[in-house]
């Protein structure tokens, strides 16, 4: 989360509203870590993270006059980022079910380790595990994918997800329950599919 204490956000926003380009640049640089983290977590296939971040910032500037200060500015920007990511994810066609044949050699090893529980997944294989989970998440609806990502990978609380997405806490819980069930079904289908 950007450090709001050392950055005069209110002053910067005033200058941006007066169309000060230097202030706009400062605001982009200040918010970039927050925006790029969201963009990377929910990046659709074949979309560059920089393009997605740019899209989020352009939406933020278009709507900046609508920001009334009811929620912290970073939450407001997060919600724009989340909805932009969901729009991009909706635009891409969801992939059908995942099979052993779709996995790389390392992903296959990781999956074997997870199934047999004989060996802990080696730290070096964490990236392969992450990629495998992302492949599974790509099969979910964008909102479901987002809630699993935040809850199970980023380990955010329900309240944090609610603040980031603008969804109320009950909705987050319902989505999480359904999304986890779908993920388990996809995982079961993957592990029971034929090895080729």
């Amino acid at each position, binding site marked *: 989360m950007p450090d709001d204490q050392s950055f005069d956000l209110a002053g910067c926003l005033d200058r941006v509203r007066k*169309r000060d*380009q230097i202030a*706009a*640049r*400062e605001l*982009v*640089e200040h918010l*970039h*870590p927050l925006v*790029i*983290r969201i963009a*990377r977590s929910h990046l659709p296939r074949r979309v560059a993270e*920089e393009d997605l*971040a*740019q899209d989020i*910032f*352009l939406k933020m*500037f*278009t709507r900046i006059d609508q920001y009334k200060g009811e929620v912290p500015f970073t939450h407001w920007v997060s919600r724009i980022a989340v909805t932009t990511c969901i729009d991009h994810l909706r635009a891409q066609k969801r992939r059908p079910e995942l099979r052993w044949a779709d996995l790389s050699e390392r992903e296959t090893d*990781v*999956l074997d*380790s*997870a*199934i047999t*529980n004989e060996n802990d*997944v080696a*730290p070096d*294989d*964490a*990236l392969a*595990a*992450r990629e*495998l*989970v992302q492949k599974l998440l790509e099969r979910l609806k964008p909102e479901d994918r987002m809630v699993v990502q935040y809850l*199970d*990978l980023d*380990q955010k609380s329900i309240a944090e997800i609610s603040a980031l997405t603008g969804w109320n806490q009950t909705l987050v819980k319902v989505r999480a329950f359904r999304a986890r069930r779908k*993920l*388990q079904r996809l*995982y*079961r289908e993957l*592990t029971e599919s034929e090895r080729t």
Partner: protein
Amino acid sequence: MNEKEQSLKRLMEAARRAPAPGDESAPFGFSTRVAARAFEAAQPSPPSFARVSLRVAGIACLFAVVAVGVNYKAITSAFDDESAAAGGDDPVSDVVNLDS
């Protein structure tokens, strides 16, 4: 929790251990490009030439309406004169109607 759920949980735990992707600061030139595009996209009013053209067109319409109002009598009387002239003898019927 059944075996498959446990296994998925282990996979998730492994995925969480993956290092976060590197640098989060804006790449060189990114903020300049975005700021320029943001203000270019959010042009609040039309350019000055378009604004002036619209005003001139409005004034021209006003002049046209005033001109018609001022000259209304002259215009209607001109139409009356034409219809009176049209109501006179028709030279063609005179030629065709040889019996009369």
